[in-house]
């Protein structure tokens, strides 16, 4: 009985180890594959590979928002140094506005518009996505009063 008890304990520890290894493998594979880098428009050419999933952040350029038929939307995003056209199929978030901060998640090919799959604007009209603020500060374009 004593031997069997030990065998059982070993089996449990082995099974627990297997689950832990599975979790660790999934975690590291997931972090390698599904991490999305944040890129400012002027960094697109240098930092992003074509077809790679990235987050593009900046300010929506005034007067560039265009609604096409079938729900296609175009707008330009700038960090002060460069401007990139974004193409998005779907409804823009309620808080999306020209002249304000936005984060577009999607893929980019050289020579084409940035294909956004998700567009994030913020619930709070005074709020600026932190990445956008950092990018604007790097460019010297930051006009906010407080450091986020």
């Amino acid at each position: 009985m004593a031997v069997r008890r030990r065998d059982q304990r070993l089996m449990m520890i082995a099974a627990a180890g297997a689950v832990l290894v599975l979790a660790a493998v999934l975690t590291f594979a997931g972090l390698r594959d599904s991490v999305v880098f944040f890129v400012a428009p002027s960094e697109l050419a240098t930092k992003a590979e074509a077809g790679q999933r990235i987050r593009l952040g900046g300010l929506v350029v005034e007067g560039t928002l265009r609604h096409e038929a079938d729900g296609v939307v175009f707008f330009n995003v700038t960090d002060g140094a460069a401007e990139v056209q974004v193409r998005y199929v779907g409804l823009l978030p309620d808080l999306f506005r020209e002249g304000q901060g936005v984060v577009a998640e999607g893929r980019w090919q050289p020579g084409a518009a940035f294909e956004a799959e998700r567009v994030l604007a913020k619930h709070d009209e005074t709020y600026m996505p932190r990445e956008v603020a950092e990018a604007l500060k790097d460019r010297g374009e930051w006009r906010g009063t407080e450091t986020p």
Partner: protein
Amino acid sequence: MIAEIGAFAMALALALSIAQGLMGLIASRRDSRAEATAATAQATAVLCVLAFICLIIVFVRSDFSVATVTANSHIDKPLIYKIAGAWGNHEGSMLLWCLVSAVFGAILATARGQQSVGLWSRAVGVQGLVTAGALIYTLFLSNPFARLDPAPMQGSGLNPLLQDPALAAHPPLLYLGYVGLSVPFSLALAALLEGKADQAWARALRPWTLLAWTCLTLGIALGSYWAYYELGWGGWWFWDPVENASFMPWLVAAALVHSAIVTERRGSLASWTILLAIMGFGLALLGTFLVRSGVLTSVHAFAVDPQRGIAVLVLLGIALGAGFGLYAWRAPKLSQPTGFAAVSRESMLVWNNFGLAVAAAVVLIGTLYPLLVEALGGGLISVGPPFFNATVAPLLAVLFLILPLGPMLTWRIGDLKGALKKLAPAAALALVTLIVALVLTSWRAVPAIGLALGVWLIAGGLIYLWTRIQRGEGRMAAKLALLPLAVWSMSVAHIGAGVLTIGAVAETGFRVEQSVGLTPGEGVAFAGRRVTLIEVGETEGPNYSATRANFRVDSASGAHTISAERRFYPTSPMPTTEVGILSSLDGDIYIALGESVRSEAGAWSVRLYYNPLVHLIFLGAAMMGLGGGLSLVSLARRRKMAA
């Protein structure tokens, strides 16, 4: 004047809660002193209630000389949202945190049960220090009663997205859950200080873990439901840092609910239960930190203030430092666990705990990884849904695979073959589901496995219920009446997990979405139905104006009309989306109205979603919450019978 009374009550409550902490911890052996501690705890709670009432009064009276009211309220706001506005902002919600912590402390002090004087008084003491920490933070870093001079004539209003019944109840429920986890934390620290964690201790712990878990379940479900119908994105869960912040304590609370059962019934796993209680409260504080500090970019946004974030981090450090320090020092002295076999109720609950804890750890890694990478100079990154779906889902799948076995096994040594034989029909049903789903979806493995697991959980839960009913004697009605409430609660919660799984898998795997530009009179074929835009017009609400579009949905079951709106609140520069939802048995047709299309006169951009079985998500979550509630009632009944 009212605001000053509120602030004064808070200051007094702070002094009393510190006294409660010191008296509870130092003078723990003597009955008379312990009673004085209890009285102090009750007085602290009364003062916090008074402060909270004062806050509601200044909100109802729209007293714009109070900064919080000006920032978050407006004269034209409906009364119910004036009241809800009291806790719908940072300062007010922190006062709510203090209130709940103090009231829980008073309940803990009043309901001593069978605990020893030392354990009881120390738990009340630790809870007093938790309340004191929250009060210090609220009073000095986010005082809801701070005055404005001169007072403005009008407030800036509550964010219109937040003027919603589900969202009025969402923060208080989450806070009941978060702060509810502070009581197990206090009990755990008291047990470590006493060097004793026996079955009576676990009996005192169980209702609190259940209460916290139930409130977290309902709070998260309400938040998810609100996101679904209010944000207009068609989704119900986004793996956003703020959502993860509530999901991690939920996972740990679920583990704690189960490990506390083992400790109460069998006396084992005591030190693991203590560790979970410490981690649960730690994650609740971490959640508050993530939400309030704004260190992570979130689809939710709150007014953020780095100083406040750091203060929460300091409180988190103190709580976790004290908790883990005491644990390392005292836990080895706790009594050794009694043994159990590899196949037994205990071992299954150990697996449950293991799976939930690993899942919580994975969510934690994914949530904090961007901070780590940034700190190491690796640039700004985000970890999104693909990561969490690929890691959490397989772990939960393993957990769900063994879940129905647990209740079928007896304590100490279980009969695996017998349990499997009884569960065979459930396994067969799940297998059939798997094959049918694979064929119908042309071999999409992930949703098929998910649906099969859901069926396995539901059928397994029903079989357990049936075997327990069969154990009774007499006619069916008599058997049903004899069935313990604990059996019902466990079955309802586990079946609810299966229902939620099916809904989540169906919605995630088979959702259809389409963007179209429609002119009035124009229709489009969508998800086996025809959606036609009838008309678009302007309309007025109580405190907003709106563009309203009416749609007709023609399906096999007939024609229905639904409308979607874009609302403009004069107090806010942002329009909000009111989606139109047509629910039927197989799922929701969900329509969000966009803006007018510039390139095509009279056309509107419209986003259509078909969300299959989405209501099962919320039904499943409600069942889990109901299971938790029933379990609480059952514990209360047992306590009454024991007394």
